[in-house]
């Protein structure tokens, strides 16, 4: 079972992001469950959503307390709450930002379990503005996630986006998601090249 937790703010499509992941996983014949952390939804308020993906039926209905991946849609949350709480050793931390991960002043203990190559940032809001003209980073970040894990493919995420947002809106989100995927894939290629060069 692979568990994802998404942190963002009301209006950023936090719940939709988890839903899209579940739809994408379903397309690849996996079992998937997506649900929000419920509250009085207000624009701008911190929102959390969860997604579980498994090859077996998912029975639990508890929140995701020990995620394999955490996606942060709004980096201003980093100083407000411990978004990486419970992140599993070897897990993935993906922040929506144009800045490198290392420039965030995080409590080292919170990301201790995250390998350097799993500490990722992608300028999802910038990409969303470029492709959609609106600051909606959710689908973009899913594109980035598919570059580092094989839990769902980019193609399945794109299909899920197209189903949910037919027409131009879906196409623009897909373009932005693909751009984010490419940025992360390039970073990984560069890192492994450097590692090989150093060896």
């Amino acid at each position, binding site marked *: 079972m692979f568990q994802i937790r998404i942190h963002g703010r009301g209006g950023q499509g936090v719940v939709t992001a988890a839903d899209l992941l*579940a739809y994408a996983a379903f397309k690849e014949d996996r*079992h*998937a*469950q997506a*649900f*929000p952390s*419920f509250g009085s939804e207000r624009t701008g308020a911190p929102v959390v959503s969860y997604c579980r993906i498994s090859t077996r039926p998912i029975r639990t*209905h508890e*929140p995701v*307390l020990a995620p394999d991946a955490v996606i942060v849609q709004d980096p201003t949350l980093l100083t407000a709450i411990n978004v990486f709480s419970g992140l599993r050793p070897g897990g993935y931390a993906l922040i929506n930002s144009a800045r490198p991960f290392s420039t965030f002043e995080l409590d080292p203990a919170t990301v201790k379990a995250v390998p350097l190559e799993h500490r990722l940032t992608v300028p999802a809001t910038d990409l969303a503005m470029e492709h959609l003209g609106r600051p909606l980073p959710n689908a973009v970040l899913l594109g980035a996630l598919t570059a580092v894990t094989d839990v769902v493919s980019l193609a399945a995420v794109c299909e899920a986006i197209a189903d949910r947002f037919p027409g131009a809106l879906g196409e623009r989100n897909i373009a932005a998601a693909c751009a984010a995927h490419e940025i992360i894939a390039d970073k990984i290629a560069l890192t492994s090249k450097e590692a090989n060069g150093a060896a």
Partner: protein
Amino acid sequence: MLREIEGSKAVAAAVAACRPDVVCAYPISPQTHIVEELSRLVKIGQLDCEYVNVESEFAAQSVAIGASAVGARAYTATASQGLLYMVEAVYNASGLGLPIVMTVANRAIGAPINIWNDQTDTMSQRDCGWLQLFAADNQEAADLHVQAFRIAEELSLPVMVCMDGFVLTHAVERVDVPEAEQVDAFLPPFTPVQRLDPDDPVTIGAMVGPEAFTEVRYLAHRRQHDAIEVVERVGREFAQAFGRDSGGLLHTYRTEGAQTVVVALGSVTGTLKDVIDDMRDEGQEVGLVTVTSFRPFPEAAIADALAGASRVLCLERAFSPGRGGVVEDDLRRALWDRRDDVSLSTVVAGLGGRDITSASLHEMLQRAVRGELAPLEFLDLDHAAVAAHLSAVGTPVPVTQGADS
């Protein structure tokens, strides 16, 4: 059709497949997505029925009563304060023997105001004369609606389908959504036993005086007993027709050889199954009884399911203040013949949306196995917060007894 779908939408699709003639509702969280989706299906022409926007939950249940009384298949949905607001009409629906089906997206009752899940709302209607079926997951939530219309119309009694608000209604999961063609083969058209018709006037719900009221109530009591067989049979027939064991009176999970058995209702049973698997792997003999039909209460089936248990733990998402569990009282009667050989503890959990985690359930079940549970406990109670409050406000002192006079 197998779909990845939100619980509310799966329920709406299942209800639509039952071809209701009238859907009437007033929106309230966490029921809203169900009736929104039904109204959308009506608007785009996928569901041919009268969708009535009403001004309150009292009106919603009243419209359902009127519709059902003229022979229409009627459906509504509500939650929490909305259910309380329609209570007068809720009792009328069962008293009049009208086979309305209603979803309740279980939610806490205020004050203090709280929009999150527990089961206090439907437990408050334990004695209203409706059947109450509890869904363990979204597959069962969808399937129970198909069964609910069959059961309701066969018995001429209304049925409440209870599903945990948010936890199920707002969760996107894999559901095999019942198709209209499948449902058509399973659910015959509604043929009311009596109906209001201007061309053939009758009165229903006329006043009944002391000379016959007890008999009317006694017959209602008998009908709840009859319902046990109907719920069980319809569940079995559903399994044959749809190929999945969904609904019926109750489900047992790994109760073979289990000395300690948990009894629970609703979505927590999924998390409990995972915990029970882990504990079985650790060599601890624990099992689960999921109660689907709370009203009618399947006393004999429960007693059978618990026949091998020496420690029974009733996990409830509601309680009776000053007393304890609500389901507990029914369980106690089911276990009465074995009272010297079995212990019963009640754990109140998940009130007002508090998460029920597998870690807390695991710890609680381990204590149950060791016989350490008190007769009544509250899962994850913040004892420090309670102590701080009590020290701030003081412990109440009785002023009417022992006061200087």
